[in-house]
């Protein structure tokens, strides 16, 4: 975590430091349990392939959570997220390997809004493919 960002301290165009987040089969099993989403495609390779997927895929919401963490780690504890939206443009395929896959997140301040809010434009990639598009968070800063 990078301390506390303030509204006065950011400008449109400010880059957020890029980050990489690992995702393994264990991550997905844990996320199944914590979220209650036990769709077979997130943990069972046989079912995933039977329904035409290349392999087990991550929950879209797991990927979105990494993008959320990217924003909140940057913004600091006294920032609050007021809006957060993404489009899931591609799947994060998670092979049965110890190092699984990784989700690379980057972003920048898109605009400063009234009421101490700033809009952050986000990009997330896995295996060199954009997995989130139209990803945007609005946070209220101190």
């Amino acid at each position: 975590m990078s301390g506390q960002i303030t509204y006065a301290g950011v400008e449109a165009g400010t880059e957020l430091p890029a980050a990489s987040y690992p995702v393994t089969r264990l991550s997905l099993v844990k996320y199944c349990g914590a979220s209650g989403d036990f769709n077979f495609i997130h943990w069972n390779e046989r079912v995933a392939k039977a329904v035409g997927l290349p392999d087990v895929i991550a929950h879209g919401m797991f990927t979105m959570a990494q993008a959320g963490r990217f924003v909140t780690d940057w913004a600091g504890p006294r920032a609050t997220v007021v809006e957060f939206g993404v489009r899931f443009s591609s799947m994060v395929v998670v092979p049965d390997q110890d190092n699984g896959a990784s989700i690379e997140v980057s972003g920048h301040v898109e605009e400063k809004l009234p009421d101490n809010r700033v809009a952050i434009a986000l990009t997330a990639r896995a295996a060199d493919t954009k997995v989130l598009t139209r990803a945007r968070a609005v946070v209220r800063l101190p």
Partner: protein
Amino acid sequence: MAINRDYVGRVFGVSEPYEVSRVKIAEFADAIGDANPVYRDKAAAQAAGHSDVIAPPTFAIVISMAGSGAALGDPGLGLNYAMVVHGEQRFSYSRPITAGDVVTAQVTLTDIRDAGRNVMLTTSTEIKTVAGEHVCTAVSTIVERGA
């Protein structure tokens, strides 16, 4: 099996109250790999201006899915869940979900539309406290992939 378009506009019943616990928030934060103390440590959350531990932004999906899962699982809708992937997700928050909140979710199926061989379904879920305070609106679009 075809999706039943008559479900567009349907407002589903308000869910049973969901009590947000610190333990569940910490479990969720662990599962997404987020070590932020405001999700685990009441003192850290209070230092950041909250009354108690808060939940990560995407935690709202746990509550909205409890409602939308029942709606999308309605046999009359005809959705094949094994063919479903997530298309889009948006949250608008009045405030963070906080440990101790007792909330309900109410789902409206707002749209069903074709996209090539796929069908896209959009739901809007209002998450409110049992006292009626708005906490979060979650808008989800899921995609049933064509066989």
